[in-house]
């Protein structure tokens, strides 16, 4: 188990390096001079001297060695310029990556506060929302999926299929607005928006809105998985030894059928992070998603960059955790060298 965990952790390194390269390149190839953007958040136009100072501060200038390197092939003018750019951007990436691994994600353009602390401040609210949504989706999705599979071919099954399709086709923002209209405007039962400082009533509508899509996915998946398991020999054996339906479904079918659900629930967590950007914006929920949308409007690149890193890291780690969990609950999976062909990617 330890060896398997370690090898999986090691395998994450190239992916995370790729994510970091993506985050770095996006911010650096985006239109506009970062130094100018960082300075032009106020009302005043920055002066040329200020921009130059900021460029130096942000480390945007061509590193010394690069000019020398480019100078050495001065005869090939075009090539020399390209080489200087390439060298400059590589040196900056390595420097930036060094900062990142030490936890320094730079300062935000708008308030000049550290990006890491700004993100950290917003994470709890998003985790709370995403966890609540995932919990809702799992409980409802698994129960509806199981019931519709057990009562296959009945009206219940049909309505379950329609419900799952509707859930997969409804955008979260439309669900959110309809819920707000019904429960906050007409019935006045729940607050329209806001965090409410731990008042859980504020969590209900955002969590439902965010869970709808994932719930639809889980209903379909559980349904298919339970159907497949119900056709197995050991289910017939369980019936043959005189167990009633409830015991067969709960003790024999569900335990096996839930394995793929665990994997997908893990990947759905990433979907929830993306959906959180929309739901948080509608409900004025002070999480990371809302922060990112605001930063996009404000062109606050360091925050967006930090968010890409954070999302990539979270997503990859959650997937790893689900995989390990999978290995723990399913004794059939052989660890180590045999841990291939696990139905991940059929490449």
């Amino acid at each position, binding site marked *: 188990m330890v060896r398997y965990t370690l090898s999986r952790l090691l395998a994450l390194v190239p992916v995370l390096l790729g994510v970091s390269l993506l985050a770095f390149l996006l911010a650096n190839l985006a239109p506009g001079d970062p130094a100018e953007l960082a300075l032009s958040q106020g009302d005043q136009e920055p002066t040329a001297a200020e921009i130059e100072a900021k460029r130096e501060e942000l480390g945007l200038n061509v590193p010394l060695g690069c000019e020398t390197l480019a100078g050495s092939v001065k005869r090939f003018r075009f090539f020399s310029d390209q080489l200087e750019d390439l060298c400059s951007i590589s040196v900056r990436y390595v420097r930036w990556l060094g900062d990142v691994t030490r936890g320094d994600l730079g300062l935000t353009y708008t308030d000049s506060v550290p990006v890491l602390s700004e993100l950290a401040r917003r994470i709890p609210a998003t985790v709370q929302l995403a966890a609540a949504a995932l919990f809702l989706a799992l409980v409802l999705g698994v129960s509806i999926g199981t019931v519709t599979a057990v009562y296959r071919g009945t009206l219940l099954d049909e309505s379950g299929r329609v419900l799952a*399709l*509707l859930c997969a086709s409804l955008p979260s923002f439309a669900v959110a607005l309809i819920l707000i*209209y019904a429960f906050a405007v007409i019935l006045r039962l729940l607050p329209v928006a806001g965090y409410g400082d731990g008042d859980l009533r504020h969590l209900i509508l955002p969590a439902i809105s965010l869970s709808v899509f994932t719930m639809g996915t889980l209903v379909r998946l559980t349904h298919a998985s339970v159907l497949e398991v119900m056709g197995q020999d050991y289910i017939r054996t369980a019936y043959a030894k005189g167990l009633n339906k409830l015991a067969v479904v709960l003790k024999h079918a569900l335990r096996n059928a839930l394995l793929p659900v665990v994997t997908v629930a893990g*990947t759905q967590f990433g979907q929830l992070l993306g959906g959180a950007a929309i739901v948080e914006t509608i409900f004025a929920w002070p999480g990371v998603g809302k922060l990112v949308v605001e930063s*996009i409007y404000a062109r606050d690149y360091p925050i967006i960059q930090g968010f890409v890193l954070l*999302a990539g890291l979270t997503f990859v780690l959650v997937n790893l955790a689900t995989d390990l969990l999978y290995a723990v609950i399913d004794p059939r999976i052989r660890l180590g060298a045999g841990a291939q062909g696990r139905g*991940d990617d059929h490449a």
Partner: protein
Amino acid sequence: MPSRVLPAAPASTTETLQDEELFAVGEHSPWRAALRVLQADRAALAGLILLGLFVVIAIAAPLIAPYDPLAIHLSDKLQGPSARYPLGTDQLGRDLASRLIYGTRSTLGSAIPTTIGLLLIGLVIGTTAGYLGGWVDRVVVGSVDVLLALPRLILSLTLVGFLGPSLQSLLIAIIAVGWADHARIFRAATLAAREWEFVLAARALGASDLRIMARHILPNVIGPIVVLATLDLGHIILMISSLSFLGLGIQPPTPEWGAMLNDARTYLEQAPHLVLLPGLCILLSVLACNLLGDGLRAALDPRSRHR
């Protein structure tokens, strides 16, 4: 193997497609299969009809819209349905029916080309990687792993953030993020196709690579491609409307369902139909894609004969 670095790709289609099974060679022609499923599966037929209806509305928008979708009638603002305005008016007195009709045009007009673009790019990159192998394949697989390591919506969102909000950035973002999923599938298809006997036979007869790809492999994978495209169209419609809702896609005053919903938020109490109707349009168009895509997939999947 580098492609195994990640667990299952973020399920962009609602159920994880098993690439190899999807591309197993069937004895039947995919078109005949599609026809058969449409005859048997009324839900899929409903999806096709609904989708067709939206396409017709999008094309014929100038003929059927009663008003100019941008024409402002301030004295008639926030009205309910009436003889003059069949679905009422918005906060600027613009005719809601006309805006919804033109909204179909902007949504489908950007979603359909994007879907096709995604497919083509995925096809080119995926088949090239699968066919050439070696370092090209490793670079592609590595990039795909990185892209799939991030949730699609988050990546598109951040990409739009760096490019600056506009329709153009939105489409670039969707394509730049979405190709990975397709490339992965087409790569697997190419790897599988290399083993098919009739492909080997064609090669033995001296057919060129291009001819083998175009004449022998493509016709056999067209069915799964259509399924992918149909399901993907639904996702892309959702994505375009989501990002436009956030103000990061199609910009006002151009009518677009997601952006219209965003405008209507403020008037939720006075005019809930301004929220409900664009929401219904998004729901129906995505539902149409899902119904059709699911039906076609069920027909092509040999495991789901029971349907």
